[in-house]
């Protein structure tokens, strides 16, 4: 039995796995705590992780009907992510593991998103192409084995989910932006406003979303507060269509160059309905298999970390006592649009 902990961003997560089988997958979302800031604030996130980490681990064990006596190894996200947040998860995992002389398995967060597809039921076997899009990352991963992936393309500026959050804030739609924009866009015309078709002339597989966010800002300025109120749904729908358009265009290009037989989606943005639909259509057109894991395995969770841990290198006791988490993308200021 494997205990896994994930605290890289704003969700405190723990899971218990028996091989590829999920026995429990507990996610304690902090979205409410970050709502007023319009984005994830590193210090606020770290404080919440500290409060929640051990209760979430206890909940995951209870839900699995297990005790720590059943646990053979402890996995935790080592990075990339917010350093203060990662440190809480790693320190908790090290404490639990060291006291019982269990091995510790540090896991790469992005490999976790890829490995969500290896879980039962219906695990997807490599090779496949994985599009990972969330508030923290947007990338195309070429997956040829269980241990790693090849980075085929990534965002050159904002992550897709970040663009959703910032645009939602401009439209006064609240946080998190993804679900808020999807809801608002339902009543809107996706062709009402022209949005820049970013990266279309770029032959590579990289993404860019900062231009879209700026376009939303300009539309809002042109419309004025009353106009925004009136045309909110149209702006949201046009923005969403542009994000989905860019993600699927790059996915299509990657499918053409790479001869992949299957596509998988991961990350919080993969919960977006229109994106799922568009990718489904594309896969049908291209004659490739589409693997959609449940939304609880798309957004950050510990089951995916446990899944990746099955193929990662365990560090035996006591070699990990000095193990440190690694950070990336942490800014000193809150990630909000100004």
């Amino acid at each position, binding site marked *: 039995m494997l205990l896994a902990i994930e605290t890289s961003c704003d969700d405190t997560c723990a899971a218990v796995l028996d091989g590829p089988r999920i026995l429990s997958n507990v996610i304690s979302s902090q979205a409410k705590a970050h709502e007023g*800031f319009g984005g994830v604030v590193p210090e606020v996130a*770290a404080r919440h992780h*500290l409060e929640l980490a051990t209760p979430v681990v206890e909940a995951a064990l209870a839900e699995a009907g297990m005790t720590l006596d059943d646990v053979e190894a402890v996995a935790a996200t080592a990075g990339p992510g917010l350093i203060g947040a990662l*440190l809480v998860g790693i320190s908790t995992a090290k404490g639990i593991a060291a006291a019982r002389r269990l091995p510790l398995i540090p896991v790469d967060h992005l490999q976790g998103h890829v490995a969500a597809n290896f879980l039962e039921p219906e695990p997807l076997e490599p090779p496949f192409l994985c599009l990972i899009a969330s508030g923290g990352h947007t990338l195309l991963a070429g997956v040829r084995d269980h241990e790693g992936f090849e980075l085929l393309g990534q965002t050159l500026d904002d992550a897709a989910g970040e663009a959703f959050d910032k645009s939602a804030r401009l439209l006064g739609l609240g946080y998190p932006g993804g679900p808020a924009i999807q809801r608002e866009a339902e009543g809107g015309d996706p062709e009402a406003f022209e949005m820049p078709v970013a990266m279309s002339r770029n032959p590579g597989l990289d993404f860019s979303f900062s231009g879209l966010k700026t376009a939303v800002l300009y539309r809002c300025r042109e419309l004025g507060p009353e106009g925004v109120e009136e045309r909110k749904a149209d702006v949201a729908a046009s923005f969403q269509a542009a994000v989905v358009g860019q993600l699927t265009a790059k996915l299509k290009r990657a499918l053409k160059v790479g001869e992949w037989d299957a596509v998988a989606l991961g990350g919080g943005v993969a919960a977006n309905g229109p994106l799922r639909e568009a990718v489904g259509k594309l896969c049908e057109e291209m004659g490739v298999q589409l693997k959609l894991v449940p939304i609880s395995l798309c957004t950050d969770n510990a089951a995916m970390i446990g899944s990746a841990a099955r193929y990662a290198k365990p560090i035996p006791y006591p070699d990990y*006592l*000095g193990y*440190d988490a690694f950070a990336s993308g942490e800014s000193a200021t809150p990630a909000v649009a100004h």
Partner: protein
Amino acid sequence: MDTVACCWRDGEVLHESQLGLSPQGRPLHATRLLEEVERAAASGGGWEEVDMLAVGLGPGTFTGLRVGISTARGLALSLGLPARGVCTLDALAVGIAEAGAEGERLAVLDGWRGDVFAALYSPDGERIWEPAVYRPGDLAERVAALDRAPAVAGSGAVRFRQELARDGVRIADDSDPVHRVAGRHVCALAAESTEEDPDGLAPIYLRPPDAERWRERDASQRAE
């Protein structure tokens, strides 16, 4: 700032270590704490012999507190042991008494950003001033208004010696161990305490996250 571990049995110190900063000037919490804790446990005969975990709750660096507290919670959960939290200023004040102070004691920790964390204690160890954040000058003024100069020590007293050492306040040399929080005092206070910790090792931050202060500032500017 320091990384401290201790094994304590009925007043007897079996192991005590106190690590400062790395050669690069970085705290060693994440990389050295668990190793030191394991060594301390081993000195007492291993985890089977340990009855309770004592943890410093701060104030201190936010990251340091979180590494210490989450490590302790992980260990406590894994071992099925109770864990008891101790205010770091309280532990520092015990050390000031141990060093021979007879009157009131002022424990002062460096709060960075030009601030200090401080609390005042009576000769018998009761808190007179609750832990709080001060500008050094404000703390000096509050101290000057006391009837008798207290014994002052801690990393904050070292850093702001010039501001604080006046009106009869004497501060020991920078290298004096009285300025550093010792694991044995954290253990002693935890052993003495009879209070149940309802929040389960809640950290003593004393400061809200910066983002909250910015939000309040933005809100007050908008209101103007």
